[in-house]
């Protein structure tokens, strides 16, 4: 039952972290210099009385402690605030767009992880060779190009110059496409933003997997495997990879923060209607409730995703599955 113990421990830790994030969220927006209501309504024609009314409406005149409890109560009801820009509840705005972000981020992650891991494993297996050096240099160069920069470059070259891909958005406007044609349209719009994310992210996995592979190949059990007369492919698959990929799984969780950054940048450059783009719009429009909501959603998602990764890991690593040795 070690797995259950582990699962409970990790879940509790995740919940505590989520609570800490909620508190942080609250604190950050209250520590803004200046008057939050002034910030939301910068039009100098708004009178002081109107501002005071606003303050009361949003409960901003109450003591901080009460504001915090109110905030928690709201959250418990799924109320993330009211977006000034969109003139509707934040939760609705986010709900509308989260699917598009998931589509983009999951696709990009899957491609990046698979390609990165394979290349990294190859690089590590042939450590020191020309193939290894080539893969490393390539990865390092791509890793140095931030997603938004890559996005702009891809947009300029493949969008504007070569006219191969659309310049933004998720579908061709007013085309009225449905069904399969619609899906193809979306896929076509997805290519450039996905690649902007992938081309940075895969480098992370190449480096990770390669390092792990190099460590594993140094281990005694690889010599034992060779002394059994096993074929190279078997040694690679069953002994090297299976062990090398374990730390990569753990680190996937840690790296999700980068995936979030990537999706925010890509959605901004390509006007992809997801919650990453919402962050940019909220900043531009000074819509703080919306920004708060987006931050909360991103942060909590990362914590939950990490939890899922930890739970999966506990099932695949026998050292955790069965507990520590009984010597």
């Amino acid at each position, binding site marked *: 039952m070690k797995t259950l113990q582990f699962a409970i421990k990790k879940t509790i830790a995740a919940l505590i972290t989520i609570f800490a994030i909620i508190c942080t969220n609250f604190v950050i927006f209250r520590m803004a210099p200046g008057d939050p209501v002034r910030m939301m309504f910068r039009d100098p024609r708004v009178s002081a009385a109107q501002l005071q009314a606003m303050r009361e409406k949003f409960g901003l005149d109450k003591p901080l402690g009460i504001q915090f409890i109110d905030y928690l109560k709201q959250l418990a009801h799924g109320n993330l605030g009211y977006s000034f820009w969109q003139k509707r509840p934040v939760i609705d705005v986010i709900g509308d767009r989260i699917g598009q972000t998931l589509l983009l981020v999951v696709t990009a992650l899957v491609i990046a992880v698979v390609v990165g891991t394979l290349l990294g494993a190859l690089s590590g297996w042939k450590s020191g060779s020309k193939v290894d050096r080539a893969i490393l240099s390539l990865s390092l160069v791509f890793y140095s190009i931030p997603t938004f920069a890559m996005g702009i470059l891809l947009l300029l070259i493949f969008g504007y110059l070569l006219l191969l891909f659309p310049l933004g958005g998720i579908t061709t406007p007013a085309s009225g496409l449905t069904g399969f044609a619609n899906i193809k349209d979306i896929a076509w719009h997805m290519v450039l933003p996905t690649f902007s994310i992938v081309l940075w992210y895969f480098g992370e996995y190449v480096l990770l997997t390669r390092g792990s592979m190099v460590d594993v190949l140094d281990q*005694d059990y690889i010599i034992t495997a060779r002394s059994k007369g096993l074929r190279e492919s078997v040694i690679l698959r069953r002994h090297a990879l299976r062990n090398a990929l374990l730390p990569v799984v753990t680190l996937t969780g840690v790296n999700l923060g980068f995936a979030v950054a990537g999706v925010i940048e890509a959605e901004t450059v390509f006007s992809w209607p997801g919650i990453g783009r919402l962050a940019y719009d909220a900043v531009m429009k000074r819509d703080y409730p919306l920004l708060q909501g987006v931050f909360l959603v991103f942060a909590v998602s990362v914590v939950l995703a990490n939890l899922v990764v930890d739970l999966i890991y506990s099932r695949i690593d026998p050292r955790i599955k069965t507990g520590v040795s009984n*010597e």
Partner: protein
Amino acid sequence: MVGMGESILEVKNLHIHYLTRVGPARAVDGIDFSIKKNTTLGLIGESGCGKTTAAMSIMRFIMPPGRIVDGEILFEGDDIVKMSEERLRKLRGKKLTIVRQEAQNALNPVMTIGDQIAEVILEHESVTKAEAWERAEKQLDLVGISHKRIKSYPHELSGGMRQRVMIAIATACHPDFIILDEPITGLDVIVQRQLLVLINNLREQLNLTALFIAHDLSVISETCDYVVVMYAGKVMERADKYSLFGNPLHPYSRALIEAYPSIRGDRKELVSIPGAPPRLIDPPKGCRFHPRCKYATDVCREEEPELREVDGHYVACHLIE
């Protein structure tokens, strides 16, 4: 096939170098020995004398910057040094096996021990998975582990048990020849004794021919028929067990045996060999042992002694006629 009285393994003029920036380190500098079927050859010497390097070279596990630069290793008549990788792979695990010194990580941490034993059987013999698994269970019985533990993972076993699993793996395909490279070193003494008994029983039961490497003389004397004494990459003396321990001829062999305290008789001061083994990049001229030998003469400092037969032993010393 090798008949009784014939040699399974013949090492001839083996030279292994490790390339360093300042020149080659001559880890094994011209050694010869052979092992007859159903006998056990012991290889002793201080740390760094080249015995593990020699053992690993038989399996051709010498990785750069190490290299076998000369010599032959004839296994059942075929030269391992020149063999193709594919042929060698088929020998490893099946006819030619090794058990190394206990290491925390000598077993794959994410595979059950049953799988790891069955794996070598499945590779070399055409049996079904179920049959291989049954054989694995029998192997565990053979080495004294309850076969209920067949689904255990290595981290659930103690050091001694893990070493037993290594022995189970090495003997799984009924090999002709097994190398035991310090198989009990590093374990606690009671476990050492248990494993030694196990190894001796298996040698008889399975008719194994073995190369046993150790630096503990008592272990060698209990398990081996024939002994080779190495120093600084060279063979100093070769003899059968009784001749060597009864009447060691080479000053180094004598010193080694004298350094081993006897449990009987009066208590004496512990004797050790002064000095340290030489650096293999630039070994001493003449006899390698002369800087530490109390009998060294001028000829010892100048000329390297050849291995000569004296009184049933093979000795490399100018002073022994």
